[in-house]
């Protein structure tokens, strides 16, 4: 299937600028799970070369019929950053490969002690695989389609958890200075990731920032800000990139985080999340932040996993009905689509957006 990449880009651009697109854009956060099902390849086969990764990324996104072009190896500098850390520290044994789903590092093994944190080697992202392969693939995709993958830094909590494990939660109270030292190292690593991205894939226009500490069942807002938020603000100020905030947690601090970032002079242009699930919450959010694009609508473990195609269609319809007419909406099942989500339901999202998302929105 040949996609009109230019139309995809214009659709997204219109939404981000607050103009009316031809229809509501559709984004999928592709990952190894769905890519393996569509391409028939294992994860290691998919990342075996920049050319293969680029080719399979285009194949998967074309199959899904979405308006973005997400690399099929997870959207952010998380799981594969674990691999880079493992390799940079000569501990590839702690990384667990999977054939058909996202591979992960064994949590907490690289930074068990204070000495481990002191001696932790930051990966060189222009040299340490898989990053060079990923960046080269992004470049190839840009050349072939004109579409780019989002820069996806992860400052800092997902990497804290990977490196320090559950001990990090005790460190918050018992050893905050040590935890801060680890956060600074992660920040330096993410900065290196950004520089390598710019050098090898080109200058990004925004940052798709994962803010995993900002969930109210995990940390207080103050601690989340201390150990993650301040680094997000620092990164945005230093790169001068506007932020798309991603938070796939169940009890997110969306409003508090956006307001705090604004106080710090950081521009947030979009929020990608599934929770809260109540659509009216998003209507209120829209009233409060009319210039922020909402990227959401479906939770991958709700209708997508447990519902029927009709449930998926009804959810998309309801979301577009309430939030589409004012624009600044991108339908995005969040987060990555895992196993157990039927392909029928994935396609149902695409069909529903085509059916109900055309402007002017006219539902019922």
């Amino acid at each position: 299937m040949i996609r009109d990449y230019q139309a995809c880009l214009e659709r997204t651009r219109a939404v981000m600028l607050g103009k009316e697109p031809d229809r509501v854009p559709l984004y999928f956060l592709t990952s190894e799970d769905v890519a393996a099902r569509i391409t028939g390849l294992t994860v290691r086969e998919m990342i075996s070369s920049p050319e293969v990764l680029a080719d399979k990324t285009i194949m998967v996104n074309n199959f899904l019929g979405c308006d973005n072009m997400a690399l099929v190896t997870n959207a952010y500098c998380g799981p594969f950053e674990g691999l880079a850390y493992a390799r940079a520290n000569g501990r590839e044994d702690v990384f667990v490969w999977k054939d058909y789903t996202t591979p992960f590092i064994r949590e907490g093994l690289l930074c068990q002690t204070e000495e481990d944190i002191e001696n932790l080697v930051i990966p060189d992202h222009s040299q340490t695989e898989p990053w060079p392969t990923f960046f080269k693939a992004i470049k190839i995709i840009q050349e072939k389609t004109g579409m780019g993958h989002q820069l996806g830094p992860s400052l800092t909590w997902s990497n804290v958890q990977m490196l320090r494990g559950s001990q990090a939660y005790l460190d918050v109270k018992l050893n905050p200075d040590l935890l801060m030292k680890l956060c600074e190292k992660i920040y330096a690593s993410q900065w290196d990731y950004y520089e390598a991205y710019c050098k090898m894939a080109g200058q990004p226009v925004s940052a798709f920032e994962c803010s995993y500490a900002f969930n109210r069942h995990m940390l207080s807002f103050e601690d989340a800000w201390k150990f993650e938020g301040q680094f997000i603000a620092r990164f945005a100020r230093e790169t001068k990139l506007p932020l798309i905030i991603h938070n796939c947690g169940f009890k997110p601090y969306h409003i508090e985080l956006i307001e705090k970032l604004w106080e710090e002079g950081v521009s947030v242009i979009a929020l990608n999340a599934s929770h809260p699930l109540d659509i009216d919450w998003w209507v209120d959010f829209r009233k409060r932040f009319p210039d922020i694009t909402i990227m959401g609508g479906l939770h991958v473990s709700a209708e997508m996993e447990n519902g029927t195609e009709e449930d998926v269609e009804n959810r998309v319809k309801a979301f577009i009905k309430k939030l589409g007419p004012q624009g600044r909406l991108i339908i995005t099942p969040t987060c990555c689509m895992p196993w157990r989500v039927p392909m029928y339901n994935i396609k149902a999202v695409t069909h529903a957006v085509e059916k109900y998302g055309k402007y002017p929105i006219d539902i019922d």
Partner: protein
Amino acid sequence: MNDTYFSTMKEHVLAFNEAALLEIIEKALNQGVAPADIISDGLSPGLEMIGQKFEVGEYFLPELMLSGNIMKNALDKIRPHMLITESKMSGTVLLGTAEGDIHYIGKNIFGAVLEGDGYKVHDLGVDVSPQTFLGKAKEVNPDIIGISALISVAVSKIAETIALLKENNIQTKVIVGGAALTRENTKTIGADGYGADAWQGLRITRELIAGEEGIR
């Protein structure tokens, strides 16, 4: 006199002051205060208050995990002073992350909270096969089996584990938790309870052991 001890213990639990807590426990034991009373009137109310603060968003996972560790150490100090009948644990829980998943943070925090509430926890670690759960369940005869999953491929393995336990006539209630689980899929995989967080997990554990309805 005992009330003074108990209220001081509660204060130390709430303030996460382990050294002071262990000291006052020592003093109370030396003064002949019954170990069971120390637990029921001094420590448990402190943990309950921490749970309440967690539920209303005043405390968070660090406080929950820290209090679990402190409570466990306090219980370890008290148990040698108890009669065998008194020193019975709250129950036995078999914990593990499902096969295919190597994430352990949520499971460990839950384990710490369980131990703090007086449960004997057998932690099988991560990437635990259905057969391993079955083998250990036969060995330790737990009151509850808790299975965690962060990634969705592991949900199928939880369903497989539950089916295998049932096939082998293991009647132990199974509770699940982790980012890959929801209240909805808890029902479809045949689990008896769902804990969205460590405190909810503790509550559902207590309820199921008391014979109450599961899945929250």
